[in-house]
Each structure stands twice: as C-alpha cells, then as structure tokens.
C-alpha cells in the first residue's frame, strides 16, 4: 500500500486543500502545520495555474494572488522540502496537466518523489489520457489520483479498477466551491467503487460545514475541503493559520 493509505488509518480521513503561495509561502507553511495540528490526515497542496478550468471563483482568486506574488513550481518544491522536515502526514500536489508537462514530466515527478510528495491530482487528466504521466508516476512511486464524477456512470468500474492512492469522488456537477446542498446519489457511486477496488474513496467539491463532512464520511472514507479553507486564507491573510487550524479541528471532530 502507498503512503497515502496511512491517511485513512485514523478513522474517516479529513483532507485539507491549500493553495501554495497565497498570500505567501510562510503563511502557507503555517496553515499546513495548523491543519495537521487540527487533525488533517492528508494535505493537498495546490500549485497555482493561470487558467484553472475546474475551479470556482474562490480558488481561482487564490491562484491569481499567488501567481501575482511571484510563486513558481521551483519555489514550491523548495518549500515542500522545508515542510517535510517536520510534517509527516501524506501530501499530494493538486495542479493542472500543463504545469507538470511544461516542467518536463520526468523532472517534475522525480522531484515529487525526492521531496516527499506522495501523489498527484490533475483534474484535466481523465482516464483516457493518464498514460501521459502514469508510467513515470509508477516508476517513481508517486500515486496518480483518479477522479470520479456524478456523470461517470458506466466509467466508474473502469476507473476504480486502476485507481491508486485514493479515489477523489467529485460530489456535484460544476466547479469547486462551497454548496448549501449536495444532491448526487453518492452512495450508489461508492457501491460500484467498492465492488471494484480496495483503494479508499474521499468526497470533495462543495463541502464546507461539519454537518456536510459527517454526512459525506457516512458514505465514503473521507471528506476533502478546499474552497472553505482558501476562503479563510483570503479573509484573514497572514493571520489565517490560527483560523485554519480551528476550522480543521471542527471538521475532523465531526468525522470522529
């Protein structure tokens, strides 16, 4: 089992997404440490992209602020190396295919391994295109995370069979962002996933409240929260880490 499996050994997993470099890397580092202290089982680090087509306004804004602040892939690699001195929970990168491709896929993925990144989430790399990076991910032992959507239907089994690390189940149609209500029949999707793989399954997109997290954890193995955390960073800036820590604690408590 990959190191990501560890995130699911502590009851239902809470997965926290944070955009690197918003508003600056020291704040991101403090937010990561606060989230871990608050009980986050896995950290998803967003590498900003100029045109994040799967993101709603909140994470789009974070990407823009980080890029305007001069963030680059190399700076983020250095930052993770630093973070890994004391942060031991599994960590994955969330970014877009072009960020990996243009850096040189092998150079990017080999560096992930070297600095202690356990997986990659690329929302614009569906099953049909995963050969773009899968052989390199396998060679370097970095899990390429598969996404399953409310519209996946007949594709769920095919995707689940080849999944590694964890499965990112997208809760709703549309882009990232908080939602008051999630109406997809996620239980039915998770049943098909379970029939086809032992890889754990976490639900993301639209989750912001402890009640929603608890509800999602009742269906799957964990909950992923991005926009609600990024919103705190937007609101509190350099003062955000304490707020992020308290928020993560409230969410993880709801999952216990």
């Amino acid at each position, binding site marked *: 089992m990959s190191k990501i499996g560890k995130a699911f050994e502590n009851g239902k997993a809470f997965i926290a997404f944070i955009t690197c470099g918003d508003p600056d890397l020291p704040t991101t580092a403090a937010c990561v440490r606060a989230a871990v202290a608050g009980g986050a089982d896995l950290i998803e680090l967003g590498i900003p*992209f*100029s*045109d994040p*087509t*799967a993101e*709603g*306004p909140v994470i*789009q804004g974070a990407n*823009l602020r980080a*890029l305007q602040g001069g963030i*680059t*892939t*190399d700076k983020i690699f250095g930052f993770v190396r630093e973070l890994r001195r004391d942060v031991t929970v599994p960590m994955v990168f969330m970014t*877009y*295919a*072009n*960020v*990996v*491709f*243009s*850096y040189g896929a092998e150079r990017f993925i080999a560096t992930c391994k070297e600095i202690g990144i356990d997986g990659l989430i690329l*929302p*614009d*790399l*569906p*099953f*049909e*295109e*995963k*050969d*773009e990076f899968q052989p390199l991910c396998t060679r370097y032992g970095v899990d390429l995370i598969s*996404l*399953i*959507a*409310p*519209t*996946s*239907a*007949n*594709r769920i089994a095919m*995707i689940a069979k080849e999944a590694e690390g964890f499965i990112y189940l*997208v809760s709703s*149609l*549309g*882009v990232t962002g908080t939602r008051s209500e999630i109406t997809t029949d996620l239980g039915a999707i998770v049943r098909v996933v379970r029939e086809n793989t032992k890889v754990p399954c976490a639900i993301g997109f639209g989750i912001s409240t402890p009640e929603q997290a608890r509800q999602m954890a009742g269906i799957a193995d964990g909950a992923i929260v991005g926009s609600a955390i990024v919103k705190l960073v937007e609101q509190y800036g350099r003062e955000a880490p304490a707020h992020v820590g308290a928020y993560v604690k409230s969410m993880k408590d709801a999952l216990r």
Partner: protein
Amino acid sequence: MTNPKGRFGIHGGQYIPETLMNAVIELEEAYEHYKTDPDFNRELTELLNEYAGRPSRLYFARKMTEDLGGAKIYLKREDLNHTGAHKINNVLGQALLAKKMGKTRLIAETGAGQHGVATATAAALMGMECVVFMGEEDTRRQALNVYRMRLLGAQVVPVTTGTATLKDAVSEAMREWTSRISDTHYCLGSVMGPHPFPTIVRDFQSVISKEIKEQMLEKEGRLPDAVIACVGGGSNAIGSFYHFIGDKSVRLIGCEAAGRGIDTFETAATVNTGRLGIFHGMKSYFCQDEYGQIAPVYSISAGLDYPGVGPEHAWLHDIGRAEYVPVTDDEAVNAFEYMARTEGIIPAIESAHAVAYAMQLAPTLGKDKSIVITVSGRGDKDCAAIARYRGEDIHE
C-alpha cells in the same frame, strides 16, 4: 491505456475533467452517426444554401492583382455569409447536431463576437436557449456584436477573470458546461478543445476548401498555387486548407497575429513563439512561460487574441505541410485600409492579417500563378477600433 482517437500526430487528445468525459463521448457517437445520415446532411445543406447563402463567391480581385503586379488574387468571400463570417458554417452544423441529440440550450465562447453572433442566430432559428461567454475586454472592443447577440435573444455573460479575453471566455464556457450538461451543448467556435471538437469543426468548415477547389477549377482550370488564411484557433484556415492537404503543389499559409511583433511580449503568434503544452482540452502549441503558465497574449484583433492553436494546425506545422507566418497589427491595419480602397471590400481585421501577407507574397510570384485569400469575415465591426488605432474617436 491511451485512446488514439482525436490525435493529429502528437497533438489533440481529451484533457478535460472527468465530469465532461461522457458528454464528449456522447457527442462523438452522435456525430459519427449523423455525419453520414442522408437526412441530416440534406437539412444541413439546405440551411447552408438557403439560410447562410452558400456557396460563397470566389471573386477575382482584378484591381489588387494589377496593383500588386504578380500572382492573380482571388478572394473567398466568407464575409458574404449570413451573420458576416465563416463562423455560421460550423454553428449551423453543431446546432443541428445538438438539436438531434435532444439538447435545448447552446453555450458558446466568443472573441470578436462573430462566433457568438452566429450561435445566437442559430439558437434563434432553431428555438434554442443561448448563453454566450465573452471577455469583458472584448465586450468593450466589440460593443456592436454584444448588442446583436442580445437582439437575437442570447444572454451575454462578460467574463472578468484572467485577461478578460477569448481564452478566459473558453475557460468560463467549459466551467459552465461542467455544471449543466444534460440539456446543454457547448458549441465550440474553433478547431480546438478536446476531441471530437477539432474534427467536428474542421469537417463543418471544410466546405470552404471544397468550394474553392471547384470554383478554381471552373475559373482557372487548375488549382491555386497558394491558399492564405488567418489563424487564431484556426477554423477558417483549416476549412480553407482541408481539401488541399493532399495537393502538394498548393502552398497552405496561415497568418498568425503578431500584435506588436514576435520579438515583443505583446503578440498572439502561437506557432511562431509558443511551445508544446496541454490546455483547454488539447495538446498543441501555446504561448506560455517556463513554468507552463499561459501567457497574456495580445493582438488588435479580438478574434485572433488566443494563446493556443488547433491541434491539426500544430501537426501541419510539424510535418511541414503548412506554413505559419506572423503579421503585425500595423501590417493588418494597412491591409484593412488597402483592401477597402482598392476593391471596395472591408475585411474583418482578422482576415486583414491574411490580406497583409498576400500583399507581400503576390508581387514575388509570376503572373501565371494564382493565390486565394480567405476573407473570413466582414469588417464593419472593426471600424471603430481601426479609427481609434489611427487616432480618431468615432461613436457607433
């Protein structure tokens, strides 16, 4: 397991969120079914002929030919189509296909507004709902087209993210499609995006080169020596090239928007200045920085102001079958004015990029040669912007 479909050499593919995968698969299946369906083709041909006004004229530009003193110049008059540009060819095809698929709502991106106007037009004709995404910057540059779309019953959504131009309109249309798929068809306006769009749009636009070929054989008894078209995403260019790809004697020349020059950052000449990347669903050439961040491109032409190029063009470039040349704002504006004065035809500023290169090429060729310029659209929409470029402020 790589899906080999939808590749042009190494380019193309389907780099899109999982949420959209079944939608593009459904689209591909529907297209494969209807493209050989006699009823579908009869209906489409009737729309193209009776509604859009096809076939478009191939006009011998006698005065330009005499003035430039070289090859004979023919103009493929896509500007004479209903709605004033080549965009209607693709839109009528896609709207009819969407209707057959049971979709009731069309969404589209637009740069200059020509594709948005065409989509709004088809939606009105076929009784469908229509939402058009347009960069806020472009809604200012092309205010007249915004009004036309609204007049046709479409909702125009100004996009404020990123550079607020065409690429951001595409991103926003893709986001909208992921949130509402069951009743909505994304009517993509160029030969770009994920498979099957580059193939579908190319097929619907290839009527241009089919007609050029027939018309040249009728007028000259031989094929042209060169076909010249402007390239943003590349739909009018691929439409103009497609039936000549196998005819090696015909030079295929795509004119990219160089903006203030390919040695500046204010350019949109993707093949000349970009490098290989993955964006908006496809692998192709993109203007980007060393970390793969998409560059904020620039051109006077809102329709060519896009940081990528369609995957089939990237492939035609790779194999050396087509040439892609940069044309600056200045050269395009000069050509815009030149063609107005010389032939009494005001081309779209996009098309003026092709005219500009033809003005350089024609004098270098013998009088026994002939070239075809695709005039992809008409220039009424650009008059205010060109006046501003010349330091004159006019009110529309």
